[in-house]
């Protein structure tokens, strides 16, 4: 697990959002967090711990201490850590927010873990659990291995074997051993329980047999039981024999007894039967009476038919009476109805009259309706026509207006066309101006410029030649002078003498001059004649040159004058004043400005020309267009006229119709009202007609009804009469019957009451007779059977004997069956015991085995080392080997870790540490080291463990190590050594972060986080 980025806000001393990027520090492999006391160094570790596990790094710092004192309540405390595990990046963040009073909001504790595949976990507990899963160590283990907190570095060192076991188990995956141990223990326990159960069972079985002296199971028990069984079996045999004898005896006696008993019974029966018969005979009278009653009843029964008839007739008569009464009632009702109807019907005739009057009225009304229809139609027509008229007139006026406009436009265009010739003329003027004036002028100006140039050139030439002339002249003068001089000299040789004496002011004999600027010097060098000649020739040549040049000059001058004159003439032509031709710049400017003027004039004119041309073209178009327009306008006129005409017609028709309408209105001023009245009348008529129809109908109904009712009345009367007759008949018959049989009505009625019991009475009588007969028979039989013996026999003695015997039999039988049962029981019991004993032996053996194994594996042996711990011890040895490498360096070869072999006390050993001190050659307890030495030992152990884990593949990735202080306990030399060790540990994958305020470390380690305490919390600076 390598931290990559840590963000803290309102966390302990970090008020503002502080971000630490660990990546460059991780690259360095070893970095220092330094600063003054209380600046906030350990807080960084706290933050990492908190982000991962929700807890502080030191166990004495509680979670709530983390809230920054400076934070306003609205700022939540947030810690976010991005870390790398297994090459992938994870991000975990936790957050606590607070209420105004400073209390933590419990609901608002957020925690989020985002994994590289996007899976998210939230809620504090879940995140912590997931982190524990991912890192494969929980908070406590993390602190012992990865983050060595201030003051707690010795924990791993001094922790007992059990704690170490837990840590190493996770790291080295010896869970399977632990599992084995647990399983074995389970198995041993299982078998123990089994064995115990079986023993209990055996014991219970033995005890259940209730055998004297046998309480618990042991090896002899089986034999004992078998012996017992044998005994019992013998006993059983004897008893069975005795039983048999006894039973026989009892049988015999019982038979005798039974016989005698039977006889006694018969005697008793005889006596009983006799009595019975007597009783029956006593009842004879009663039954005699009963017979009589029976006869009477049957008689009454015969007569009863007549009575029935009578009743029937009565009923029928009554019914008829009722019907007759109903008919009377109906008649009454009908009479009432008739009365009502008569009243209504009285109006019958009036109604008829009214109806006919209305009908007449309505037929008149039809005519009126027609009128109305016409009126409506006409009004509609008028309206339509009017609308049409309006429409048309509107459009007409529009068209007219348009037409006017078109005409105006046409006239306007005609005017325009007239300007055509004017414009043509103007155009021609312009063209001529251009041609005649401007263009030639421009040409002249060009000529002028050319001329000016020519003039200039000529001038230059002239000057040039002039110069030459001057030069030539000068040359000539010089050379001729020289010649003269030479000549003079030649002559002057002679004059030299003369000259010698010549003084200034003295006239020369030759020329008489008083001044002698050039006294002839007597030079040794005198030109010869030839030389003189040559010189003369030169002079001549010079002169020639001079002449030539002079001629040329003159020529050039002429040219110049020509140029000048032509320029002047040009100027005149151009009407400008003669400028100074010598000033070329002014000339140029002038020419240029003139040219410019002309150019602009030309442009203007050309533009004017073009405009004019355009206009002319336009006018031509226009004229063509005008013709078309004229035609169109004429057509339009025609159309308009037509329209006007139509309009007038329409107007006329409208008036006609309107006239009609007015007429109607005049005739029928109240047309509408009348129509309405008609409608009402129609309704009234309808109603009256209906009423009439109804009346007629009703009359018919009433009449019919009366007829039927009368018929019915007659019927009913006759029926009634019939019924009466039959009734009388029936009554007569009945009384006759009574008389015939001599029966009074009362007697009859009484008898009839009992008619239902008739059959029962008959039966009773019959029964009685039977009984009597039966009883007599019985008595006879029994008497026969018994013969003489009519008295009971005494059986008491026999009974007693039998009873005694039976009792004995029961007792002994009981005992026997008891014995039998017992035998069975014991046999069964024995079998069970034997079966269980087999299993017991087997299980006992297993239990012993497992118990032994458990004993050994779980470390209850004297060495107190469990199997797992044995394995772990090997790993531990390896760790110690790695750790010893570091410790050797740190302690300069003095100390070495040794794993303790003997057990101390009951705590399982195997993972305890001792220190071998080479100086004294003795073993020392780890706790006996000084503070600094303990730190070195812890550091070595942590580094060794970390190295070991690194070299094991597929284990926990704990390639980061954080050490909080501890260096303060070391002296200068030790710090140096420790630094050497740590620096030499830097490898690709490992990162070691150290918190310390010790200055020496700052010199040795480049990568640093410097923490300073400001007024409002801490600030960080990262350098590397």
């Amino acid at each position, binding site marked *: 697990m390598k931290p990559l980025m840590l963000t803290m806000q309102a966390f302990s001393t970090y008020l503002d959002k502080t971000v630490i990027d660990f990546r460059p520090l991780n690259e360095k492999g070893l970095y220092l967090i330094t600063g003054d006391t209380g600046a906030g160094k350990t807080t960084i570790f706290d933050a990492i711990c908190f982000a991962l596990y929700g807890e502080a790094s030191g166990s004495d710092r509680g979670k709530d201490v983390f809230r920054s004192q400076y934070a306003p309540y609205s700022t939540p405390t947030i810690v976010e850590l991005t870390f790398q595990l297994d090459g992938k990046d994870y991000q975990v963040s936790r957050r606590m927010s607070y209420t105004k009073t400073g209390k933590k909001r419990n609901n608002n504790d957020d925690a989020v873990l985002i994994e590289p595949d996007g899976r998210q976990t939230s809620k504090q507990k879940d995140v912590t659990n997931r982190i524990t899963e991912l890192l494969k160590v929980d908070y406590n283990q993390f602190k012992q291995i990865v983050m060595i907190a201030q003051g707690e570095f010795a924990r791993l060192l001094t922790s007992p074997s059990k704690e170490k076991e837990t840590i190493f188990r996770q790291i080295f995956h010896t869970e399977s051993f632990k599992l084995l141990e647990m399983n074995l223990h389970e198995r041993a326990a299982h078998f123990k329980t089994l064995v115990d159960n079986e023993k209990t069972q055996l014991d219970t079985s033995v005890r259940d047999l209730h055998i004297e002296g046998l309480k618990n199971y042991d090896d002899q028990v089986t034999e004992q039981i078998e012996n017992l069984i044998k005994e019992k079996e013998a006993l059983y045999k004897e008893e069975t024999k005795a039983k048999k004898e006894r039973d026989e005896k009892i049988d015999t006696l019982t038979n005798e007894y039974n016989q005698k008993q039977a006889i006694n019974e018969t005697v008793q029966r005889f006596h009983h039967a006799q009595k019975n018969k007597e009783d029956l005979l006593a009842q004879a009278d009663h039954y005699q009476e009963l017979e009589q009653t029976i006869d009477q009843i049957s008689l009454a029964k015969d007569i009863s038919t007549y009575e029935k008839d009578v009743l029937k007739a009565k009923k029928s008569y009554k019914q008829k009476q009722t019907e007759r009464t109903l008919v009377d009632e109906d008649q009454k009702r009908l009479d009432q109805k008739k009365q009502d109807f008569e009243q209504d019907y009285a109006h019958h005739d009036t109604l008829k009259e009214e109806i006919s009057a209305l009908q007449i009225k309505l037929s008149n009304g039809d005519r009126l309706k027609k009128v109305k229809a016409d009126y409506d139609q006409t009004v509609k027509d008028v309206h339509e026509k009017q609308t049409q008229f309006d429409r048309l007139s509107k459009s007409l006026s529009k068209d007219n207006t348009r037409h006017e406009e078109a005409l105006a436009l046409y006239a306007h265009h005609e005017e325009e066309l007239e300007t055509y010739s004017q414009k043509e003329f103007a155009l021609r003027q312009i063209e001529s101006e251009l041609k005649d004036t401007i263009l030639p002028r421009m040409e002249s100006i060009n000529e002028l410029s050319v001329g000016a140039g020519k003039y200039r050139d000529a001038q230059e030439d002239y000057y040039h030649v002039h110069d030459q002339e001057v030069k030539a002249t000068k040359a000539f003068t010089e050379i001729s002078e020289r010649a003269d001089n030479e000549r003079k000299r030649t002559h002057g040789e002679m004059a030299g003498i003369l000259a010698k004496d010549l003084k200034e002011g003295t006239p020369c004999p030759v020329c008489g001059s008083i001044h002698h600027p050039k006294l002839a010097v007597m030079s040794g060098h005198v030109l010869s004649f030839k030389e003189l000649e040559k010189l003369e020739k030169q002079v001549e040549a010079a002169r020639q040159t001079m002449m030539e040049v002079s001629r040329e000059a003159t020529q050039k001058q002429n040219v110049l004058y020509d140029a000048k004159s032509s320029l002047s003439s040009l100027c005149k032509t151009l009407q400008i004043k003669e400028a100074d031709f010598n000033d070329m710049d002014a000339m140029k400017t002038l020419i240029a400005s003139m040219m410019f003027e002309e150019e602009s004039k030309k442009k203007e004119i050309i533009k004017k020309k073009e405009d004019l041309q355009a206009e002319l073209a336009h006018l031509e178009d226009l004229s063509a267009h005008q013709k078309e327009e004229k035609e169109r306008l004429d057509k339009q006129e025609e159309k308009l006229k037509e329209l006007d005409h139509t309009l007038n017609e329409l107007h006329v028709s409208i008036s006609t119709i309107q006239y009609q309408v007015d007429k109607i209105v005049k005739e029928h001023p109240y047309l509408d009202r009348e129509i309405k009245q008609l409608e009402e009348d129609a309704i009234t008529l309808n109603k009256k007609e209906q009423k009439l129809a109804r009346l007629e109908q009703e009359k018919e109904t009433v009449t019919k009804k009366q007829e039927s009712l009368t018929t019915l009345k007659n019927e009913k009367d006759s029926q009634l009469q019939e019924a009466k007759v039959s009734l009388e008949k029936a009554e007569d018959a009945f009384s006759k019957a009574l008389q015939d049989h001599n029966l009074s009505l009362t007697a009859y009625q009484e008898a009839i009451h009992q008619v239902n019991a008739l059959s029962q009475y008959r039966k009773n009588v019959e029964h009685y007779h039977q009984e009597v007969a039966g009883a007599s028979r019985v008595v006879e039989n029994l008497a026969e059977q018994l013969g003489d013996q009519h008295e009971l026999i005494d059986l008491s003695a026999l009974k007693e004997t039998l009873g005694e015997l039976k009792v004995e039999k029961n007792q002994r039988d009981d005992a026997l069956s008891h014995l039998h049962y017992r035998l069975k029981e014991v046999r069964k019991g024995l079998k069970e015991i034997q079966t269980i004993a087999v299993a017991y032996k087997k299980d006992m053996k297993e239990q012993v*085995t497992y118990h032994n194994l458990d004993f050994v594996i779980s470390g209850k042996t004297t060495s107190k080392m469990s199997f797992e711990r044995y394995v772990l011890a090997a790993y531990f*040895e390896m760790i110690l080997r790695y750790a010893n490498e570091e410790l050797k360096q740190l302690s300069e070869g003095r100390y070495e870790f040794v794993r303790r072999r003997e057990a101390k006390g009951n705590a399982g050993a195997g993972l305890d540490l001792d220190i071998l001190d080479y100086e004294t*050659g003795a073993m020392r307890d780890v706790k006996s080291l000084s503070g600094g030495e303990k730190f070195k030992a812890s550091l070595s152990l942590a580094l060794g463990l970390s190295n070991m884990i690194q070299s094991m593949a597929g284990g926990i990735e704990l390639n980061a190590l954080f050490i909080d202080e501890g260096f303060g306990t070391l002296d200068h030399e030790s710090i140096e050594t420790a630094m050497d060790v740590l*620096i030499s540990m830097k490898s690709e994958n490992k990162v070691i972060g150290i918190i310390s305020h010790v200055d020496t470390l700052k010199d040795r380690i480049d990568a640093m986080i410097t923490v300073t305490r400001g007024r409002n919390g801490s600030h960080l600076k990262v350098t590397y």
Partner: protein
Amino acid sequence: MKFIHIADLHLGKMLHGYSLIDIERELLKQITDYLREHEDIKAVVIAGDVYDRSIPSQEAVNLLNDFLVTLIMKLHRKVLIISGNHDGADRLNFGSEILKMEGLYIEGTLKEKINYVDIDDVRFYLFPFVKPSGVAALFPDLPHGNYNEAVASYLSMQDFHTSLKKVMVTHQYVGHSAQVSDSECLLAVGGGEIVDPDLFDEFDYVALGHLHAPQYIKRQTLRYSGSLTKFSFDEAHQKKSFVVVDTNDFSFELVPLTPSLDVRVLKGTLEELMNRKDEHPDDLIAAELSDEKIIPHAIDQLRTHYPHVLKITYPKLLGNEAVETKTLNEISQMEPGALFEAFYKDVMGTDHVDEEYVNIIRRMFEGGEEQ
């Protein structure tokens, strides 16, 4: 003229808890005595690591004070000092501007333009120890990824043109494969601290400090003077000396240093060592006992004969295998049954394990089946 080149005094250092200050005092006295006898030595060059730590002990400060007072006030020689990686540069630099007047030149801070001192016809360039970050602070645009680059960059910004002879005094770790001993400390890992000797080709002599064994790199005049004392037991075989350099031709002489207490390693069994007659039993000794087992309180016994035994090791006991526990590799390769056998034998102290037991264990490992 001549000058003395020393370095790595590490005043105040302890050797296994024994303070070397007295030996250092003695050796410094040897140097001052030598100077007294040789008047033609004009300067003493101390190439870094004067103190052992950035805040030195009082004794160390006093010792240096005495030494410098002797050199400057009594012997009137010039002293040139640069700070090394162990010195607290700023502290060492204290008062350096004032001290220049007296001929004591201390260079503790790296400046943009390297400082130098001219003595006679020699220019001494004083290059205090610097890390790449130090160079980066002055010339941030130049490469300073490792020590070599940083030093190269710094040197490239300097102008060494002069008609005088040139001596460079530096404390960087110059060299390819040099003799390194325990007492030198690692600055960075993986050779990142090594500086190429070719960077100093233009100097007539380079006075190096940092490594404690006297040696040269590439050429005789590119030289570590080595420390005055032996600082760890693996320096025990080295012959310590100081360098006297003649600037006329840059020849040099190594003058041996003879402290009264040497640092030695004794080998033998305890008995042998106790019975041996030793000429200098007071020396600082590391004893390598060749006994096969640890003898309790061996060190106390030895100290009766050799009062300054500082360290005991038992080389024969290295590789002290655990007898009863198997090694890790073996264990991870053993199958559970065999593992159990070994464990059982060990714990119960027997040679024989019931087959049945082993089978049960094997079975339970394989499946955890119910029996």
